[in-house]
């Protein structure tokens, strides 16, 4: 099987960790900072980082529109944390001028779990993944406030208020997003799942 070419949006964030995880899953991974570098990609990952910075740089370097077009045109995409925000159609608690790539019919609340002192690790059940629970790392993480009918919820954790379960993993068609950072744990199952989406196998 040939290795699919998967890009990692590389204007800012933990790009290296995603490149490494994708390579470990049999993809050919490449950093993307310029519109021309989108050519030939079979999928793209939007990494963790600061979503306001990513948004601003994507506009300034003319990457946002081509990326929107590519995602609208069916390019599989996976976003972790800030990347989840970038794939959301609507953002709460963002900057007024914050632009997203969009594509997933969901509303995401930025920094919803709190500030850095509230960042946490927790095990969660990730639908579609075999094996033990996914050990998830949440860093100033967003959660999904609401989803449209086309969106499948793949994982939740209890909210900080103890009550309501919060959505932290979703899929809509070829688009995947998690509030947490699988690229930080060495468990590559989420990236494998995305590469399988890229290959059209799941």
């Amino acid at each position, binding site marked *: 099987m040939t290795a699919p070419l998967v890009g990692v949006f590389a204007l800012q964030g933990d790009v290296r960790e995603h490149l490494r995880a994708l390579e470990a899953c049999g993809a050919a991974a490449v950093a993307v900072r310029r519109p021309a570098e989108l050519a030939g990609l079979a999928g793209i990952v939007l990494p963790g980082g600061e979503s306001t910075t990513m948004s601003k740089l994507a506009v300034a*370097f003319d990457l946002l529109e081509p990326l929107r077009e590519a995602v609208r045109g069916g390019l599989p995409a996976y976003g972790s944390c800030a990347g989840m925000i970038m794939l959301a159609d609507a953002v709460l608690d*963002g900057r007024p001028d914050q632009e997203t790539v969009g594509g997933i019919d969901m509303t995401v609340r930025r920094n919803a779990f709190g500030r850095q*002192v*509230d960042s*946490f690790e927790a*095990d969660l059940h990730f639908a579609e993944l075999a094996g033990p629970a996914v050990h998830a790392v949440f860093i100033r993480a967003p959660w999904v406030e609401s989803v449209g009918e086309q969106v499948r919820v793949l994982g939740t954790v209890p909210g900080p208020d103890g009550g309501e379960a919060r959505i932290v993993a979703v899929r809509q068609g070829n688009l995947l997003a998690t509030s947490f950072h699988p690229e930080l*744990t060495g468990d590559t199952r989420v990236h494998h799942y995305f590469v399988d989406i890229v290959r059209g196998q799941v």
Partner: protein
Amino acid sequence: MDRESHPTSPDYLSVRSELSSTSAQPSVPESAAGVTGVTGTARVKRGMAEMLKGGVIMDVIDPEQAKIAEDAGAVAVMALERVPADIRRDGGVARMSDPDMIDGIIAAVSIPVMAKARIGHMVEAQVLQSLGVDYIDESEVLTPADESHHIDKWAFTVPFVCGATNLGEAVRRISEGAAMIRSKGEAGTGNVVEATRHMRQIRADIRRLTTMDETELYAAAKEHQAPIEVLREIAELGKLPVVLFTAGGIATPADAAMMMQLGAEGVFVGSGIFKSGDPAKRAEAIVKATTFFDDPDVIAKVSRGLGEAMVGINISTLPESERFAGRGW
């Protein structure tokens, strides 16, 4: 290097046990019944710094500057009482920022807010944690509060960044719990020569480690005055186990890009922005140059029309007593 494996120093017990009931140790949120949600782990502390990579963190003294920094694309702001250039000019004791000012900065921006505490001043750090800052810089730019000891950073939920001039210093800080390292440079000078020296030194020290056998690593531990366990980890990884940023004297987009080419994973800019002619424009240019650090066309483009850079100081004219980089032990 988990918090749990770190020995407790007896003379610190009373403070530590009190802290542990609230925030010091990794704790399960009471609310998260049935879930193993753990805060303050080495992984979430170091992971936070991973998310800042490729970005610029800007010194700010008030909410207005913080907004300018956020508008320019900063990944975080660093709250401090005075920028280093003013600390140099005014002299006196430089301390943690006023809590009201920090509250104001936190309220003004949505990006992470860091704040500086004096070296060894664990109570300033406790206050900053209680205010909800996202990262603490135990910084040589402020007047040291302890001339032998740094803060026991494992005792906190909030992560710390510390400065270093060489590998030994970086590893000592990591062994005390720092979750991020930055080169010290010479803050408030607008002169990158010291940041260059420190980045080159740290990277060269790491490269040498990777060629050593086990016996040589023991000798290296003596040479660097640093724990063998962390050095062994660095020798295997070929990099620090935490993110390495640069700081101290960065004043232009080209300075920032140079530090990135020397192996920095991101950039702190202090006086360089708000002591220049057009802070908003310069801040944005430094952000862009950091992202495209290897593309001279972009750096050339963003370097145009920035107005005056901060004047700067020749380090060789600075008396030893006025150099910040020598602070830290």
